[in-house]
């Protein structure tokens, strides 16, 4: 009920809580694993490993902000990655392969949007279906093969998209700084502007707030939803191409690891799972946290399975936290539930069986 008037400090500084959490975590990791987190190498590694995650999460910020979900992006990574890899390697098409890869992602996203907006199937179901369809399609078309792009680093495509501009620098860590971080920063910066200052971004948030309100204020809800899913498809295709070039290899499963991490990054960042509220800065720091936890746990000697477990846990804690922090009526409902649980469930916390506040 606070901040009835004007902006509070939390509103003025977008995503402030998550930035604080990030800094605290970073300090913790620096303290626990100084050999990793106080050296520059891990940060230059992030420059090449985080961009696909950040692009996906930025797209999802729009999708989730509009009150929808996209589960199909891992398969867009597989499908667009395949389209790009096969045209690049088998047909030697260079930049045309890049364009075709992007176009295929845009197409898949567009189809998702049409099914959600025009056919009217909930996005959860739609994109669960298209996830299987396009992943299957990529496997069928590629025959389950992977495409190793040997020698790709000599091509202009590689140089421009994932090149190492400081390769001839004298410092070792600087040599590894990769250009995709710059492209990602430009795309994310632009989309921040779009979300916060463009009509399209405003429409996205209003649609997430309420489809009915959006319709009566004159927003073409269907068209905007199609645009949102198409944007997601485009960004997933960008991620696919970066990933394929960075790995110098295409394989069908290359997107699967991003399903949880990308959605988690968005929700950790403070975008509401109920839509209507979205923050790209929050998402960016959500990605940093997810990436840092991964690196930190591996540095601490834990296996990949543990990393997934911890990420899943962070994900749940974050959504529960935001749900009750952001929505007073849900907070009240929770307390009411706890009270009745206390009465009927046998846990008596006070005379009336209520919860002390």
């Amino acid at each position, binding site marked *: *009920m606070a*901040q*009835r*008037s*004007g*902006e509070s400090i939390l*509103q003025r500084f977008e995503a402030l809580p998550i930035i604080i959490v990030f800094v605290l975590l970073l300090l913790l990791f620096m303290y626990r694993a100084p050999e990793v987190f106080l050296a520059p190498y891990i940060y230059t590694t992030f420059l090449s490993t985080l961009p696909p995650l950040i692009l996906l999460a930025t797209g999802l910020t729009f999708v989730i902000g509009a009150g929808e979900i996209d589960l199909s992006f891992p398969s867009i990574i597989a499908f667009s990655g395949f389209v790009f890899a096969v045209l690049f390697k088998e047909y030697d098409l260079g930049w045309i392969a890049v364009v075709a890869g992007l176009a295929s992602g845009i197409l898949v996203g567009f189809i998702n949007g049409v099914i959600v907006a025009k056919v009217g199937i909930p996005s959860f179901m739609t994109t669960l279906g298209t996830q299987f369809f396009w992943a299957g399609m990529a496997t069928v078309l590629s025959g389950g093969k992977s495409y190793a792009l040997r020698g790709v680093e000599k091509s202009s495509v590689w140089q421009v998209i994932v090149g190492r501009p400081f390769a001839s620098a004298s410092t070792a860590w600087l040599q590894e700084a990769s250009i995709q971080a710059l492209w990602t920063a430009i795309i994310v910066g632009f989309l921040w*502007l779009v979300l916060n*200052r*463009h*009509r*399209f971004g*405003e*429409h996205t*948030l*209003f649609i997430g*707030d*309420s489809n*009915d*309100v*959006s*319709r*009566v*204020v*004159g*927003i073409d809800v269907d068209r905007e939803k199609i645009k949102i899913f198409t944007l997601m498809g485009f960004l997933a295709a960008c991620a696919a191409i970066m990933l394929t070039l960075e790995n110098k290899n295409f394989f069908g499963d290359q997107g699967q690891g991003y399903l949880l991490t990308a959605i988690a990054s968005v929700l950790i960042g403070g975008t*509401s799972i109920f839509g*209507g*509220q979205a923050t790209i800065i929050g998402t960016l720091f959500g990605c940093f946290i997810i990436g840092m936890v991964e690196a930190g746990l591996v540095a601490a000697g834990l296996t990949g399975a543990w990393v997934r477990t911890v990420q899943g846990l962070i994900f749940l804690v974050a959504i529960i936290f935001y749900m009750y922090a952001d929505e007073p009526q849900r907070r009240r409902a929770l307390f009411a539930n706890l009270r009745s649980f206390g009465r009927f469930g046998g846990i008596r916390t006070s005379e009336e069986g209520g919860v002390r506040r």
Partner: protein
Amino acid sequence: MTPAHDFASIVRLEGVQKYFGAVHALRDINLSIARNEIVGLIGDNGAGKSTLIKVMTGVLEPTAGRIFVREREIQPGEYSVRMAHDLSIETVYQDKSLAEKQPLWRNFFVGRQIANRFGFIDIKREKEVARKILIDTIGFRGAGITVDSTVANLSGGERQGIAIGRAMHYNADLIVLDEPTAALGVAEVRKVVEFVRRIKQSGRACIYIEHNLAHVHEVADRLVVLDRGRVVSEISPKDMTVPELTEYLIALQHNA
């Protein structure tokens, strides 16, 4: 301000029909709304009040019939909310006019943003104008509400005030209010009735859908009674007291 043109009605419906599948929601509606007239639209739940105003404001397309705005016929299929806005018709829905989690300034301009040709919003201008609407048009002063407040933090009456103020800002000739007092406390209802009076004073017309007969009786120039998709009578509030009106509507139900 829109200059006074030579037209008698702002909106006129002729023989409008609306089907939802097999359901005949509106039957042969003939209705005209004059300038600076407050028309109360009453009738039981499901009588077709909401459907009627949705057809009138471009949200729903009628199955048959003709719509005239300022005596100019609207081509079926081209009528939309946007077009209604362009024709100075604004609708304030009970709970669907404002987006809860968005600040007031965005709610004032959404769908009609002050933007450059690339579609980027001039936030500073929008906030400035929103501040003016808040203080001059709606008269919110010192109520602790600013253009950055989110709708979720406003009371029901304040929300109606914001929505009506937005409609007046856009120089609407006709403001449609869909049950603006539903779920409001007594003091809040007074505020809304005040807002309706402001609409009349400013020379605009208003269609006021209301369950509470006393509220609508108080401000309307004419009452239109809807029953099962049909306009069954038009009453002047001068000719009937609120209890008589209640009796009449109950009798209507029993004649089913």
